[in-house]
């Protein structure tokens, strides 16, 4: 099944922000890189549209390719730690009215940014993109049991980080 340009543009408007947000958080809030990766991702999806299986959700196909692109990007940059450091440095514009909310968001960003890459990807796909466990397993090419154990570790780490920082 080949997607028409119009259908693809609709899919881009619907799923593009999700992919861009995923890249944004996976790269430790590197906005330029997230934009470039999103554009590159959708050009790749368009080129490979002949291999799209309509029986499966578009998001699974999209995130599977997105994750592979990220792995290549990590390999290129040699270390994921660079992104973790970026996440800590991220300083969004804070309006005084929303100070508390922004501080909480910043704490959540740091907590997620500190997760190892393998835990972070399953965490974002599950709790931000709300993908079912079976689809996450397909995207990451790992068994469902592994998805569950990584989610458990990731959620525990995020909870602990937040608890420690809220008390300070």
């Amino acid at each position: 099944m080949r997607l028409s340009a119009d259908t693809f543009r609709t899919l881009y408007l619907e799923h593009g922000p999700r992919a861009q947000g995923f890249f944004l958080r996976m790269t430790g809030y590197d906005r330029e890189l997230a934009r470039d990766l999103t554009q590159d991702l959708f050009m790749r999806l368009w080129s490979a549209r002949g291999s799209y299986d309509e029986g499966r959700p578009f998001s699974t196909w999209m995130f599977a390719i997105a994750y592979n692109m990220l792995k290549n990007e990590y390999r290129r940059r040699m270390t994921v730690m660079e992104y973790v450091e970026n996440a800590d440095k991220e300083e969004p514009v804070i309006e005084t009215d929303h100070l508390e909310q922004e501080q909480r968001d910043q704490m959540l960003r740091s907590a997620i940014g500190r997760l190892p890459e393998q835990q972070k990807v399953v965490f974002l796909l599950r709790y931000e993109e709300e993908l079912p466990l079976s689809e996450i397993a397909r995207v990451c090419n790992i068994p469902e049991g592994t998805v569950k154990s990584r989610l458990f570790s990731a959620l525990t780490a995020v909870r602990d980080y937040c608890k420690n920082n809220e008390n300070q």
Partner: protein
Amino acid sequence: MDKLKELEKESQELLTSIKSMADKENLEMPLPELDITENEPQLFRRRIPSWVAVAAMIAGIVIGFAMPKLGNSDPDTKTSFNYADTCRSIADGDVNFALLVTHL
């Protein structure tokens, strides 16, 4: 109930905050331009119609074989080099009519 579900239930407030933060971030960032067309990518950029290129190539081969035998017995002369240039130009699809007419 498995351990993960239990933990998710206990962390419901945290997960809701994470989801709403992500949704907000997704909406705040504008999408990059996407330039797609239905056409398949072209291997070669065509400047002339393909039938002209084919006809020119055939003409080039015919001229290349026929002309030295008809008008020039010495392959080392300047004329022969000109024929070769003309034929190569034709085969490349870049017809130099002035040169072609001169030597016809």
